[in-house]
């Protein structure tokens, strides 16, 4: 993957997180501690600030560098979770990945995020978006650039009726029902940003 494409991916993810920061924060104020938008914005702005160094690395090392930056800068629980996601992708992907490579690497990264968050599917988290996206990648369907953002957005919306089991939202119990999970929403936004650039 060439440097310019890596830079466009970083720019697109950062621009999306910045544009939706208020919306993510509003979701998090409903069922969490209200810092998700701000934390994600701080993390990705730090990634963008370091873009020159990051894009010069091969894709696996670039992903690990993004993950490390998110761990160090995000601050909330989403730092280690998104950090683990990107670092695991970096460990599992070759420098020039195919769709099959992406499916396999995302599968491994999902397992790592599960372990980090001590969480499973159906507990109203980012996993509930990442898993169906991984399944669509693994199925190798056509027109993924159009389909994956839809899969991700639908999956994020589908977290609304779920009851939170993990994280701060779990303190609310039944009252977490009816709100989209902020981490699921930010995951769907990132999937959309990445597909917008890769357009595959």
């Amino acid at each position, binding site marked *: 993957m060439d440097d310019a494409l890596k830079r466009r991916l970083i720019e697109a993810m950062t621009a999306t997180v910045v544009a939706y920061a208020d919306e993510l924060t509003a979701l998090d104020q409903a069922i969490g*501690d209200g*810092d998700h938008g701000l*934390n994600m914005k*701080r993390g990705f702005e730090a990634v963008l600030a370091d873009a020159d160094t990051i894009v010069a690395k091969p894709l696996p090392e670039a992903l690990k560098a993004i993950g490390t930056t998110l*761990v*160090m*800068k995000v*601050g*909330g*629980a989403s*730092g*280690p*979770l998104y*950090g*683990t996601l990107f670092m695991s992708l970096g460990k599992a992907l070759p420098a020039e990945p195919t769709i099959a490579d992406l499916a396999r690497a995302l599968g491994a990264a999902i397992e790592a995020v599960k372990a*980090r*968050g001590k969480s499973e599917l159906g507990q109203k988290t980012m996993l509930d978006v990442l898993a169906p996206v991984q399944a669509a990648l693994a199925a190798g369907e056509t027109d993924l650039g159009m389909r994956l953002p839809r899969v991700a957005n639908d999956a994020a919306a589908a977290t609304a009726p779920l009851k939170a089991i*993990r*994280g*701060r939202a779990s303190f609310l119990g039944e009252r977490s029902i009816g709100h989209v999970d902020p981490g699921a929403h930010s995951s769907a936004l990132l999937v959309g940003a990445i597909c917008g650039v890769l357009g595959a």
Partner: protein
Amino acid sequence: MPANPNVGIVIVSHSAKVAEGAADMVRQMVGDNVPLASVGGNAEGGLGTDVAAIMAAIDRAWSEAGVAILVDLGGAETNSEMAVEMMPEERRERIVICNAPIVEGAVMAATEASGGSALAVVRATAEELMSA
């Protein structure tokens, strides 16, 4: 002065004030008998936790007998786990995160540590609070 041989205690809260206050209570119990560090807040000084700051706190409270970490809410635990994994390998197995309330757990763990107990005993004493 020889290094303190007792297990060290690290207090990780989302709030610097909570972390400092809990550390004050620990010091009142054990004085300087236990290596102690507290850390709270994100890199901008707001509420949150910061992996780099947690790593620095583990260094400040480091003891060859190990370090027990007490945390408050979710992100403090996740970020502490991340900090432990980023420590040098030979230290990692001598750092534990206690499943205990942050203030009571820190006081109980430090009191146990001040008597020279091993890391596993210090942790068990703090975690007994959850089953009491």
